[in-house]
């Protein structure tokens, strides 16, 4: 999904999506452009809060994947159908 694709229906979902994609791609040019769009659309404080969430979620996945933790039973039960539809079980590397 690229920044020109808007599918979330979330307020400002398009600019937020471009922001997170640019940061995770470690692309300074795209990040600067996306940052300006977030600030223009949502304001400086919202941009900082979005940056903080994106930074945090550069941690949790790495912590999970580095230690091989599985889904908790309750989460696994709640997402069985979705994981089957997406074929996520095939990606289990543990």
């Amino acid at each position: 999904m690229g920044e020109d694709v808007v599918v979330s229906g979330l307020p400002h979902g398009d600019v937020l999506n471009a922001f997170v994609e640019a940061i995770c791609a470690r692309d300074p040019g795209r990040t600067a452009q996306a940052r300006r769009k977030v600030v223009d659309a949502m304001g400086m404080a919202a941009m900082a809060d979005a940056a903080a969430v994106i930074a945090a979620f550069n941690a949790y996945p790495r912590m999970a994947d580095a230690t091989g933790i599985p889904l908790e039973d309750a989460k696994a039960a709640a997402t069985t159908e979705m994981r089957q539809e997406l074929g996520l079980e095939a990606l289990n590397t543990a």
Partner: protein
Amino acid sequence: MAGAYDAAPLPLRQDLGEALNRNHERLAQPGCWLDGSQRLAVVAEARHAPDCALCQASAEAISPYAVAGAHDGLGELPGAWVDVIHRVAMDSGRLSARWYGEARRGGMLEDEIIEVISVAVQAVVIDSFTAAIGMDSPPLPPPAPGRPARHHRSDAKTGPGWAMTIAPEDAGPDFADFYDNDSHFYIRRSLTLVPQETRRLWDLLNHLYMEDPRLHELDGMERDISRAQMEFLAARASALLGCYY
């Protein structure tokens, strides 16, 4: 005393700025198993990883084991450490029990692996945040003197993944509070083999995201984006890293 993040190019929430400043100082202080110099070397290696030719080639390959060679390291840390740091920084979605076992066979103690993972993660997190807000990551302080205690926790055992952790039901009186408020999520448990270090990491993460994700919407929290927008960003970042936890 002014903190490193007081120079941010925009006003930060007070709690977040203070957490970033605490983290900045702690990265140079002795941890549970690494001294200040080693921790700073881990940060430097994590920041160097995007320039590693092996990491770049591996990222393009169908398997991280399809490409042979050595990492372009900075020469400060042993090869096994460099592999842990680079893979956590650059290809975390394809980490495996095999990778973890290779680090141990490469001479790393499991406690060292966990602290190295934690410090490398913090380097990535800080750099993601500063890049996002248009700030250069501030220079780190010189290593603080002191030696790590290097005390292996007898209350840790392997699981729920391939790493040793301290389960809520096994946590001693000095650590049981870490699981207060029913915060028994596996992700919170993931790096508990090194309790002091995991407290440091969560002291940062709690302010970047939130301390208790069970909150209804954002009750009592000061944020300028909605809970739905936060969860959207969380899901997209996780997917982009290839994480399906």
